[in-house]
């Protein structure tokens, strides 16, 4: 992967985007049954004749497939995601209102998971086969096997309901009229449990990668050289071992952001959090397919963008590829 040029990576991501958009276009048209219902997202029987004609004309179902495909792309490029006949609103508005909440959840939990995962992984590798290392390793493997929604439900049952410490749903207290700092605190309190759940579930992947990479780095010659030259243990740990283990971890973090975004569908459902994932879940429940597709597309774009970011960060983190 490293040998690939950055231009090649950009091209690959663009290609993935084309695949995702094509999936969005072809899936509803390939399914058995009336494509009109799948494209409009409401039962055909419930639609007015006017709406039906409008969907027909917009999707151009009477035109050749290739023409429909071209105009589908044209709409997307103009930022037109279509119209939700169920929620009676342009989908772009719906999606944009929800996006910041998901970015907030996924972003903050990823930062936290990176800090904890890297620190724990480095410590584990440094103190290899110690009680703490073995304990950490086993608990991380166990956490990896936990369903995210279950962890969320338990946290609500214990922290919100039994202890009454934190709110259990939403992003803010509805109609509380908080302003300024009060509102920030309110939003923060609502975010603690969802962010915690996502963080806990993201840590193992970071930890396992960091530990594995550190172990191989610690066994390499330049560490021995550093020690032989009289570098202190602290310096060996931070300047040599950890520094050289960061690059693969960043790749995993970028991939994890994808999972964190995907995971928001479940976390936001458990905590009734008004993000993109929750929107997607509601759309699935209400069979509002156009909204569901828009959610999928936006999550894909976010994931690709973060992967791209990681690719650009990589050379700065990996001393071996510097100056190439």
């Amino acid at each position, binding site marked *: 992967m490293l040998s690939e040029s950055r231009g090649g990576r950009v091209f690959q991501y663009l290609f993935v985007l084309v695949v995702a958009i094509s999936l969005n276009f072809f899936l509803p048209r390939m399914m058995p049954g009336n494509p009109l219902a799948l494209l409009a997202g409401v039962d055909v029987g419930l639609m007015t004749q006017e709406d039906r004609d409008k969907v027909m004309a917009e999707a151009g179902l009477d035109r050749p497939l290739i023409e429909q495909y071209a105009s589908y792309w044209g709409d997307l490029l103009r930022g037109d995601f279509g119209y939700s006949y169920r929620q009676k609103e342009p989908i772009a508005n719906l999606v944009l209102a929800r996006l910041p909440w998901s970015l907030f959840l996924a972003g903050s939990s990823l930062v936290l998971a990176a800090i904890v995962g890297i620190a724990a992984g480095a410590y584990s590798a440094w103190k290899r086969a110690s009680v703490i290392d*073995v304990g950490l390793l086993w608990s991380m*493997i166990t956490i990896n096997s*936990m369903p995210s929604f279950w962890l969320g*439900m*338990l946290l609500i049952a214990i922290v919100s309901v039994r202890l009454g410490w934190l709110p259990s749903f939403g992003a803010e207290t509805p109609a509380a009229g908080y302003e300024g700092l009060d509102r920030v605190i309110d939003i923060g309190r609502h975010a603690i449990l969802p962010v915690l759940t996502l963080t806990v579930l993201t840590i193992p992947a970071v930890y396992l990668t960091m530990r*594995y990479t550190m172990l*191989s780095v610690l066994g390499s010659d330049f560490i021995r050289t550093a020690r032989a030259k009289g570098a202190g243990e602290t310096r060996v740990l931070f300047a040599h071992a950890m520094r050289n283990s960061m690059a693969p971890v960043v790749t995993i973090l970028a991939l994890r952001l994808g999972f964190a975004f*995907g995971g928001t569908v479940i976390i936001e*459902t458990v905590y009734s959090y008004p993000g993109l994932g929750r929107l*997607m879940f509601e759309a699935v429940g209400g069979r509002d397919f156009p909204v569901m597709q828009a959610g999928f597309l936006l999550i894909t774009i976010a994931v690709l963008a973060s992967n791209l970011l990681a690719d650009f960060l990589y050379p700065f983190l990996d001393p071996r590829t510097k100056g190439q």
Partner: protein
Amino acid sequence: MSVANIKIGSDGERVAGIPESRKHKIRFSASFIAAVLGVSMILILVLTAVFAKQLSPYDPAERVGKPFEVPSVAHKLGTNDIGQDILSELIYGTRVSLTVGFATAAFAIFLGTSVGLLAGYFRRMDSILMRVVDIILVIPFLPLLIMLAAYLGRSMINTVIIIGLLIWAGSARVIRSQVLTIAKKEYVVAARAVGATDRHIIFRHILPQVTLLAIGQFVLVVSTAILLESALSFLGLGDPIQKSWGTVLYWAQVRGAFLTPAWLWWVMPPGLLIVCAALGFALIGFSLEQRVDPRLKQKR
């Protein structure tokens, strides 16, 4: 791309606290303990699934009590919102969850091994197949899974197909890299030199060498598949008739069980079962991988 695929790199790692010098004491490696733990967890679950009929006190589809009963002698884990026995639901759910896990993994590993063999052996197909693998690994997994499930409709077979179609890619990559090494070995080159056909080489020389690796991947994929199935069912996209552990949790969520004391008997047990199954398979896969993966063997 399962998280379980991440290498842990503790080949031959000794359990803490036992000094190297005590040579005569039996020492267990982490991978051995993992294997024993994993196999016993899975064995119990498989037996539960096989003997579900004998083990469960009631028919899980039957309304045998009042709704929302608390645990009692008659209903050890209480009853759900329509008066079905939760314990019986969970025992029968073991069948569904394990079946979906195994079937999905079988499908995914069949795909992954085929693609891995083709890509690793026929160099011309390599770049195209690996591009496909890369695309599948990059697309956000869960949203795509949800979208496919929503279009295809809720049934056990659909669940198996869509999860399988999305998780073979990681295994294909692992198997391909193994095939690449084997294909360069002298006996393969020699076999080709004396005129063996590609088919003969693949099935007689290469496939046997990757079988163990594929089994390790299979076990890891079962673990991932069980988790994904539970997530789909939790979102209300699972088979409505064949209730899995995830389905039980879906209803617990819909009825707000986690807001009442019922979380202890309605939410806790199904989740623990999912953890046991996913962890059991992950542990077996982990210890198999330690034995098979050439990259881990080189370490230390």
